[in-house]
Protein backbone atom coordinates (compact mmCIF):
# COMPACT_ATOMS: atom_id res chain seq x y z
CA UNK A 1 0.00 0.00 0.00
CA UNK A 2 1.31 3.42 -0.93
CA UNK A 3 2.15 5.64 2.00
CA UNK A 4 1.11 9.26 1.74
CA UNK A 5 1.66 11.96 4.36
CA UNK A 6 -0.32 14.02 6.84
CA UNK A 7 -1.50 16.43 4.15
CA UNK A 8 -3.81 13.63 2.99
CA UNK A 9 -5.89 13.69 6.18
CA UNK A 10 -5.88 17.47 6.61
CA UNK A 11 -9.53 17.79 5.55
CA UNK A 12 -10.83 15.21 8.02
CA UNK A 13 -8.76 16.75 10.83
CA UNK A 14 -9.95 20.25 9.97
CA UNK A 15 -13.53 19.04 10.03
CA UNK A 16 -13.11 17.42 13.45
CA UNK A 17 -10.88 19.95 15.20
CA UNK A 18 -11.81 23.18 13.42
CA UNK A 19 -8.17 24.21 12.95
CA UNK A 20 -5.48 23.08 10.56
CA UNK A 21 -3.28 20.45 12.17
CA UNK A 22 -0.84 19.75 9.34
CA UNK A 23 1.39 22.57 10.59
CA UNK A 24 1.06 21.36 14.19
CA UNK A 25 4.07 19.78 15.86
CA UNK A 26 3.40 16.27 17.02
CA UNK A 27 5.44 14.23 19.53
CA UNK A 28 5.41 10.44 19.25
CA UNK A 29 4.36 8.73 22.48
CA UNK A 30 6.65 5.77 21.77
CA UNK A 31 9.98 7.17 20.56
CA UNK A 32 9.63 10.85 21.44
CA UNK A 33 10.43 12.07 17.94
CA UNK A 34 8.80 15.35 17.10
CA UNK A 35 7.73 16.65 13.71
CA UNK A 36 5.02 18.34 11.71
CA UNK A 37 1.90 16.23 11.42
CA UNK A 38 2.10 16.91 7.65
CA UNK A 39 5.26 14.76 7.67
CA UNK A 40 3.67 11.72 9.32
CA UNK A 41 3.44 8.53 7.22
CA UNK A 42 -0.23 8.11 6.36
CA UNK A 43 -2.11 5.12 4.95
CA UNK A 44 -5.57 5.98 3.65
CA UNK A 45 -6.76 2.89 1.84
CA UNK A 46 -7.76 0.79 4.83
CA UNK A 47 -11.14 0.92 6.60
CA UNK A 48 -9.80 4.04 8.30
CA UNK A 49 -6.79 6.32 8.02
CA UNK A 50 -3.64 5.61 10.03
CA UNK A 51 -0.87 8.15 10.65
CA UNK A 52 2.46 6.67 11.74
CA UNK A 53 5.59 8.22 13.19
CA UNK A 54 8.18 8.81 10.45
CA UNK A 55 10.99 7.96 12.89
CA UNK A 56 9.79 4.71 14.50
CA UNK A 57 6.72 3.65 12.51
CA UNK A 58 4.39 3.36 15.50
CA UNK A 59 0.83 4.66 15.05
CA UNK A 60 0.27 8.27 16.06
CA UNK A 61 -3.36 8.61 15.10
CA UNK A 62 -6.23 6.56 13.72
CA UNK A 63 -9.28 8.13 12.08
CA UNK A 64 -12.37 6.13 11.21
CA UNK A 65 -15.50 7.63 9.70
CA UNK A 66 -18.70 5.61 10.05
CA UNK A 67 -22.08 6.94 8.93
CA UNK A 68 -20.79 10.50 8.88
CA UNK A 69 -19.19 10.42 12.33
CA UNK A 70 -15.40 10.55 12.53
CA UNK A 71 -13.73 8.88 15.51
CA UNK A 72 -10.13 9.91 16.22
CA UNK A 73 -7.74 7.86 18.37
CA UNK A 74 -4.80 10.00 19.51
CA UNK A 75 -3.16 7.59 21.96
CA UNK A 76 0.06 7.50 19.99
CA UNK A 77 0.64 11.22 20.44
CA UNK A 78 2.36 12.48 23.59
CA UNK A 79 1.95 16.16 22.72
CA UNK A 80 0.43 18.20 19.94
CA UNK A 81 1.28 21.88 19.58
CA UNK A 82 -0.54 23.94 17.00
CA UNK A 83 1.80 25.79 14.68
CA UNK A 84 2.07 29.56 14.49
CA UNK A 85 -1.18 31.11 13.36
CA UNK A 86 -1.46 31.45 9.61
CA UNK A 87 -2.73 34.64 8.14
CA UNK A 88 -6.46 34.54 8.55
CA UNK A 89 -8.63 33.64 5.62
Amino acid at each position, binding site marked *: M*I*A*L*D*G*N*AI*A*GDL*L*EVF*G*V*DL*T*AATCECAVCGASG*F*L*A*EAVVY*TRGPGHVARCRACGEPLMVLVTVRGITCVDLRGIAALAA*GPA*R*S*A*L
Partner: protein
Amino acid sequence: MERTAIRRRLTWQLARVVEGVTETARTTSIVLAAADWQGHLAGQHVDVRLTAEDGYQAQRSYSIASAPEDEHLAITVQRLDDGEVSPYLTALRPGDELELRGPIGGYFVWEERLGGPLLLVAGGAGVVPLRAMLRHHRAIASDVPVRLLYSARTRSDLIYRAELSEYETTITLTDEEPEEWNGRTGRIDSDFLAETAWAPAERPLVYVCGPTGFVEAVADALVALGHGADRVRTERFGPT
Protein backbone atom coordinates in the same frame (compact mmCIF):
# COMPACT_ATOMS: atom_id res chain seq x y z
CA MET B 1 -16.90 38.65 2.92
CA GLU B 2 -16.17 40.13 6.33
CA ARG B 3 -13.40 38.47 8.28
CA THR B 4 -14.41 37.04 11.61
CA ALA B 5 -12.41 35.70 14.51
CA ILE B 6 -14.29 32.42 14.43
CA ARG B 7 -13.42 30.14 11.58
CA ARG B 8 -16.43 28.76 9.81
CA ARG B 9 -16.84 25.05 10.14
CA LEU B 10 -15.48 23.16 7.17
CA THR B 11 -18.50 22.03 5.20
CA TRP B 12 -19.25 20.57 1.80
CA GLN B 13 -20.43 23.01 -0.80
CA LEU B 14 -21.57 22.78 -4.38
CA ALA B 15 -19.33 24.15 -7.09
CA ARG B 16 -20.32 24.61 -10.71
CA VAL B 17 -17.98 23.74 -13.56
CA VAL B 18 -17.15 26.84 -15.60
CA GLU B 19 -14.93 25.07 -18.10
CA GLY B 20 -12.57 22.19 -18.60
CA VAL B 21 -9.11 22.89 -20.01
CA THR B 22 -7.23 20.03 -21.63
CA GLU B 23 -3.65 20.24 -20.34
CA THR B 24 -2.31 16.94 -21.71
CA ALA B 25 -3.85 13.75 -23.06
CA ARG B 26 -4.37 12.58 -19.49
CA THR B 27 -4.83 15.78 -17.51
CA THR B 28 -7.62 18.30 -17.43
CA SER B 29 -7.96 21.50 -15.44
CA ILE B 30 -11.45 22.02 -14.07
CA VAL B 31 -12.35 25.66 -13.54
CA LEU B 32 -14.98 26.06 -10.85
CA ALA B 33 -17.36 28.68 -9.52
CA ALA B 34 -18.11 28.13 -5.84
CA ALA B 35 -20.52 30.66 -4.38
CA ASP B 36 -19.38 30.16 -0.78
CA TRP B 37 -15.64 30.04 -1.51
CA GLN B 38 -13.73 32.04 1.11
CA GLY B 39 -10.39 32.27 -0.66
CA HIS B 40 -7.25 30.18 -0.25
CA LEU B 41 -3.47 30.24 0.08
CA ALA B 42 -1.13 29.02 -2.65
CA GLY B 43 -0.38 25.33 -2.05
CA GLN B 44 -3.64 24.38 -0.32
CA HIS B 45 -5.97 21.66 -1.56
CA VAL B 46 -9.65 20.78 -1.67
CA ASP B 47 -11.47 17.54 -1.00
CA VAL B 48 -13.89 16.50 -3.74
CA ARG B 49 -16.79 14.15 -3.02
CA LEU B 50 -18.85 12.19 -5.50
CA THR B 51 -22.13 10.49 -4.57
CA ALA B 52 -23.59 7.69 -6.68
CA GLU B 53 -27.32 7.16 -7.08
CA ASP B 54 -27.25 4.35 -4.53
CA GLY B 55 -25.65 6.66 -1.96
CA TYR B 56 -22.10 5.31 -2.27
CA GLN B 57 -19.59 8.12 -1.82
CA ALA B 58 -15.99 8.51 -2.94
CA GLN B 59 -13.73 11.29 -1.75
CA ARG B 60 -10.35 12.50 -3.05
CA SER B 61 -8.01 15.41 -2.42
CA TYR B 62 -6.85 17.68 -5.25
CA SER B 63 -4.35 20.50 -5.07
CA ILE B 64 -5.64 23.91 -6.05
CA ALA B 65 -4.05 24.93 -9.36
CA SER B 66 -5.16 28.56 -9.35
CA ALA B 67 -3.62 31.49 -7.49
CA PRO B 68 -5.61 33.14 -4.71
CA GLU B 69 -5.81 36.19 -7.00
CA ASP B 70 -7.34 34.30 -9.94
CA GLU B 71 -11.00 34.87 -10.73
CA HIS B 72 -11.95 31.22 -10.41
CA LEU B 73 -10.88 28.24 -8.39
CA ALA B 74 -9.24 25.53 -10.51
CA ILE B 75 -8.01 21.99 -9.91
CA THR B 76 -6.02 19.85 -12.33
CA VAL B 77 -6.96 16.18 -12.48
CA GLN B 78 -4.91 13.35 -13.95
CA ARG B 79 -7.13 10.66 -15.40
CA LEU B 80 -6.45 7.07 -14.40
CA ASP B 81 -8.50 4.79 -16.60
CA ASP B 82 -9.18 2.33 -13.80
CA GLY B 83 -9.66 5.12 -11.25
CA GLU B 84 -12.86 5.52 -9.32
CA VAL B 85 -13.04 9.31 -9.35
CA SER B 86 -10.72 10.82 -11.97
CA PRO B 87 -12.49 9.47 -15.12
CA TYR B 88 -15.70 11.08 -13.88
CA LEU B 89 -14.05 14.41 -13.08
CA THR B 90 -12.23 14.70 -16.40
CA ALA B 91 -15.54 14.09 -18.23
CA LEU B 92 -17.38 16.95 -16.49
CA ARG B 93 -18.98 19.59 -18.71
CA PRO B 94 -19.66 23.28 -18.09
CA GLY B 95 -22.69 23.65 -15.84
CA ASP B 96 -22.16 20.30 -14.09
CA GLU B 97 -21.86 20.46 -10.33
CA LEU B 98 -19.67 18.70 -7.82
CA GLU B 99 -19.24 18.79 -4.06
CA LEU B 100 -16.08 20.13 -2.50
CA ARG B 101 -14.77 21.37 0.81
CA GLY B 102 -11.80 23.58 1.55
CA PRO B 103 -9.44 25.27 1.47
CA ILE B 104 -7.41 22.69 3.39
CA GLY B 105 -3.83 22.66 4.71
CA GLY B 106 -1.58 25.13 6.49
CA TYR B 107 1.79 23.43 6.07
CA PHE B 108 2.35 23.08 2.32
CA VAL B 109 1.59 26.74 1.58
CA TRP B 110 3.74 29.62 0.49
CA GLU B 111 3.13 33.24 1.40
CA GLU B 112 5.55 36.07 0.74
CA ARG B 113 6.27 36.61 4.43
CA LEU B 114 7.92 33.16 4.46
CA GLY B 115 10.55 34.51 2.08
CA GLY B 116 12.97 32.44 0.05
CA PRO B 117 14.82 31.94 -2.15
CA LEU B 118 11.91 29.79 -3.17
CA LEU B 119 12.79 26.43 -4.72
CA LEU B 120 9.89 24.39 -6.11
CA VAL B 121 10.52 20.75 -7.04
CA ALA B 122 7.77 18.86 -8.89
CA GLY B 123 7.36 15.25 -9.95
CA GLY B 124 4.59 14.74 -12.50
CA ALA B 125 1.24 16.11 -11.35
CA GLY B 126 3.05 17.42 -8.26
CA VAL B 127 3.53 20.58 -10.29
CA VAL B 128 -0.10 21.60 -9.61
CA PRO B 129 0.22 23.30 -6.17
CA LEU B 130 3.61 24.71 -7.20
CA ARG B 131 1.98 26.34 -10.22
CA ALA B 132 -0.45 28.03 -7.80
CA MET B 133 2.59 29.35 -5.89
CA LEU B 134 4.20 30.64 -9.10
CA ARG B 135 0.99 32.38 -10.15
CA HIS B 136 0.62 33.90 -6.68
CA HIS B 137 4.26 35.02 -6.72
CA ARG B 138 3.66 36.79 -10.00
CA ALA B 139 0.28 38.24 -9.00
CA ILE B 140 1.80 39.99 -5.99
CA ALA B 141 4.93 40.98 -7.98
CA SER B 142 7.12 39.37 -5.33
CA ASP B 143 10.86 40.08 -5.26
CA VAL B 144 11.62 36.67 -3.73
CA PRO B 145 13.81 34.69 -6.16
CA VAL B 146 11.93 31.62 -7.37
CA ARG B 147 12.97 28.59 -9.39
CA LEU B 148 11.07 25.48 -10.50
CA LEU B 149 12.60 22.05 -11.11
CA TYR B 150 10.06 19.85 -12.89
CA SER B 151 10.40 16.17 -13.67
CA ALA B 152 7.97 14.41 -16.04
CA ARG B 153 8.04 11.09 -17.85
CA THR B 154 7.79 12.40 -21.40
CA ARG B 155 7.39 15.71 -23.16
CA SER B 156 3.71 15.02 -23.78
CA ASP B 157 3.17 14.57 -20.02
CA LEU B 158 4.25 18.14 -19.24
CA ILE B 159 1.41 20.14 -17.69
CA TYR B 160 1.24 23.97 -18.10
CA ARG B 161 4.28 23.82 -20.35
CA ALA B 162 3.77 27.16 -22.11
CA GLU B 163 2.96 28.97 -18.87
CA LEU B 164 5.93 27.53 -16.99
CA SER B 165 8.33 28.76 -19.67
CA GLU B 166 7.62 32.27 -18.37
CA TYR B 167 9.41 31.39 -15.12
CA GLU B 168 12.92 30.19 -14.32
CA THR B 169 12.15 26.53 -14.92
CA THR B 170 14.38 23.50 -15.42
CA ILE B 171 12.53 20.58 -16.95
CA THR B 172 13.82 17.03 -17.04
CA LEU B 173 12.32 13.98 -18.76
CA THR B 174 12.83 10.57 -17.19
CA ASP B 175 11.41 8.17 -19.80
CA GLU B 176 12.16 9.87 -23.09
CA GLU B 177 14.97 11.65 -24.86
CA PRO B 178 13.22 13.43 -27.71
CA GLU B 179 14.98 14.96 -30.65
CA GLU B 180 15.22 18.74 -30.56
CA TRP B 181 14.96 18.71 -26.78
CA ASN B 182 16.96 21.43 -25.09
CA GLY B 183 15.88 20.50 -21.56
CA ARG B 184 17.46 17.82 -19.43
CA THR B 185 16.87 14.11 -19.10
CA GLY B 186 17.08 11.75 -16.14
CA ARG B 187 15.85 11.86 -12.59
CA ILE B 188 16.20 14.72 -10.12
CA ASP B 189 18.99 13.26 -8.01
CA SER B 190 21.76 14.63 -5.85
CA ASP B 191 23.95 15.77 -8.78
CA PHE B 192 21.00 17.41 -10.48
CA LEU B 193 20.10 19.31 -7.29
CA ALA B 194 23.69 20.33 -6.63
CA GLU B 195 23.76 21.90 -10.07
CA THR B 196 20.33 23.51 -10.28
CA ALA B 197 19.29 24.37 -6.70
CA TRP B 198 20.57 27.24 -4.60
CA ALA B 199 23.45 26.26 -2.31
CA PRO B 200 22.52 25.21 1.24
CA ALA B 201 24.29 28.34 2.55
CA GLU B 202 21.64 30.45 0.84
CA ARG B 203 18.99 28.60 2.84
CA PRO B 204 16.38 28.21 0.13
CA LEU B 205 12.86 27.39 1.23
CA VAL B 206 12.01 24.21 -0.68
CA TYR B 207 8.62 22.75 -1.57
CA VAL B 208 8.65 19.23 -2.98
CA CYS B 209 5.47 17.67 -4.38
CA GLY B 210 4.94 14.45 -6.30
CA PRO B 211 4.42 10.73 -5.90
CA THR B 212 5.72 9.33 -2.60
CA GLY B 213 8.90 7.77 -4.02
CA PHE B 214 9.85 10.95 -5.85
CA VAL B 215 9.30 13.16 -2.81
CA GLU B 216 11.31 10.96 -0.49
CA ALA B 217 14.22 10.66 -2.92
CA VAL B 218 14.37 14.42 -3.47
CA ALA B 219 13.93 15.34 0.19
CA ASP B 220 16.63 12.85 1.25
CA ALA B 221 19.00 14.16 -1.42
CA LEU B 222 18.44 17.76 -0.34
CA VAL B 223 19.18 16.95 3.30
CA ALA B 224 22.26 14.94 2.29
CA LEU B 225 23.49 17.98 0.35
CA GLY B 226 23.28 20.03 3.53
CA HIS B 227 19.87 21.67 3.27
CA GLY B 228 18.13 21.95 6.62
CA ALA B 229 15.22 19.52 7.02
CA ASP B 230 13.27 22.44 8.49
CA ARG B 231 13.59 24.26 5.14
CA VAL B 232 12.13 21.39 3.11
CA ARG B 233 8.34 21.03 2.99
CA THR B 234 6.81 18.02 1.32
CA GLU B 235 3.51 16.78 -0.02
CA ARG B 236 3.04 13.25 -1.32
CA PHE B 237 0.17 11.99 -3.41
CA GLY B 238 -1.00 8.64 -4.65
CA PRO B 239 -3.17 7.41 -7.52
CA THR B 240 -6.76 8.67 -7.50
